[in-house]
């Protein structure tokens, strides 16, 4: 993961965009992570006959090229489906700027290297305005310095240290944690027999 995400911002102000909307269930019948780009935001991007909805921001020039979304409150709420994050990334989205995200979505994003900088509602509204300007130019999300730059604007953002480190290092949490196997065994050795779940098949 590079220490910066650069791209065009698109304004997506709707509040409470849930993961059912980001990845409708008909695209979830899959056992792989691939092939989700078409399903992403499908009901907003396409009509019943699969024609592009001209009014949706990602179907309008120049935002067909957007790789950063500026979003309304509570983006990513609802179902835990990680497919929502996989799909956004396969659609070419590398960063989502908001004033707060639903918890599971936030964690899923971190696991996959999708940057979710958190700004105040006021800054988010300002960036939303900028994103609506077709001539706004490139936005830079600087992960190392926790700073968003676009045009002459500079805004600090919040990102907890663990998420920031995970993004910068692009690490594999599972393999990293297995290095702590000894600590896990030590914890387990303190569990009584009645604290060790054993599901009978």
């Amino acid at each position: 993961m590079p220490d910066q995400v650069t791209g065009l911002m698109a304004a997506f102000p709707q509040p409470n965009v849930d993961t059912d909307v980001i990845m409708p269930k008909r695209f979830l019948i899959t056992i792989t992570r691939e092939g989700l780009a078409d399903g992403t935001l499908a009901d907003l991007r396409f009509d019943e006959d699969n024609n592009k909805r001209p009014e949706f921001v990602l179907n309008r020039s120049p935002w067909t090229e957007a790789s950063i979304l500026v979003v309304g409150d509570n983006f990513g709420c609802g179902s835990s489906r990680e497919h929502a994050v996989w799909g956004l990334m396969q659609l070419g989205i590398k960063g989502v700027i908001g004033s707060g995200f639903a918890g599971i979505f936030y964690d899923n994003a971190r696991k996959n290297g999708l940057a979710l900088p958190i700004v105040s509602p006021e800054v988010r509204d300002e960036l939303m305005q900028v994103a609506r300007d077709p001539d706004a130019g490139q936005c830079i999300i600087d992960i190392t310095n926790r700073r968003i730059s676009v045009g002459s604007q500079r805004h600090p953002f919040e990102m907890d240290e663990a998420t920031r480190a995970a993004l910068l290092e692009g690490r594999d949490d599972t393999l990293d944690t297995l290095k702590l196997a000894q600590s896990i065994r030590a914890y387990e050795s303190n569990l009584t027999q009645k604290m060790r779940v054993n599901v009978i098949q």
Partner: protein
Amino acid sequence: MTKTLYDKLVDAHKVCDLPDGDMLVYVDFHIMNEYTSPQAFSGLDQKGLDVWRPEAHLSVVDHVNATRQRDPHDDASKLLIDNLENNCRKHNIAFYGLGDPRQGIEHVVVPEQGLVAPGMLIACGDSHTTTYGAFGALGFGIGTSEVEHVLATQTLRYKRLKTMLVNVEGALAPGVTAKDIIMKVVQVIGAGGANGYAVEFAGSAIRDQDMSGRMTICNMAVELGARAALIAADEKTLAAIKGRAHSESFDFGGTEWRSDESAVHDQTFDIAAEDIAPLVSWGTSPDQSVPIDGRVPTAGDTATPKAKAALERALAYMGLSAGQSVQDIAIDSAFIGSCTNSRIEDLRAAAAVLKGNKVVSGVTAIVVPGSTYTRLQAENEGIDKIFIDAGFDWRPESGCSMCLAMNDDIAMDGERIASSTNRNFEGRQGRGARTHLMSPAMVAAAAVKGHLADIREFQFEGAE
């Protein structure tokens, strides 16, 4: 030092601190379903990893299976179901599949099988894992990468949440249920109002609820963004888990799982039980609800242009006009099911309303018991007869069904549904489908009347 219940649970499960500020927590029990786990198993395969402790996991088929018949309704869902079974076989993980008497919606199955106890930490690739908080257990939803992590390490990387206390004090008015309590809480705090928080529910109205009601409340806490919901364990909790298949084999400590008297929460909300009316949702977010004798809001009710735009969008999607009386909203169908409201207590409550009544002609009504065990119990009590006589379609198999419409129970474009489920999102029950959330008794009343109806004015034999 005094501690909240949440902090006690986190501290008890902490394996170690991590250098980046997170911690590692131990997962006592992990549940999987067929749609959020396949990529976790393939992750293990790619990395050549084994499951750390196979006996601490359970897989249940619930999201994509058909409920009209046992066999999968199409090849794609069969693929997901078979994939889960094969993965479980390979890794020696318990699997409750189609036809297994223990199968059903995961969050209904787990308490039924006695697989939850106060003091446990439970993770599952499903957001409604908050349900287990009803038992004083820390349950929370995780994504697929985290499912892989739990399988391989029996732990999760975890960041401590802030805590919010929601006190609901007083006695509920007749006709008001646990569903109305939680819908009120979501309305007051807002969808996303508890993002970053673990919410503890307290107060006499919460304690008075039976375990089924407490589960309904903790289940829908995720609709306010809470990553975890908790209710202190008491004698009722312990009584409810006695005598079930697994319960005798666990002990994580009993009623000591409660917040200390003077524990400080980061935020507190007080809600008077008397102020809660039977609620229905009118919009496309679970916090958009009004009392059943109320009206759909008008733009004048909201302050900001942003809120006005959201309201207008929701009204357009729902096909409603601002200011119209909620009880004038005619429905096309009724659905009783989901991990929020499909337990035996919910079926009994709806059956009481339906006894001696008929679903009005033109309305399609479906009931999907939350689990096979629940269905058999209901059939034993003759509840299936009451539903069937009233004109409900009593489904012979259990699962999530029309709660999220991943099987063949899909609402049509524009179809308006009175639903006992938890999410009224755009397209949740089918593309263009219009969902109104409410208690199971109110779904039954709406099915009989053909429009959203006030349970307090509804005359029924089964009334107390």
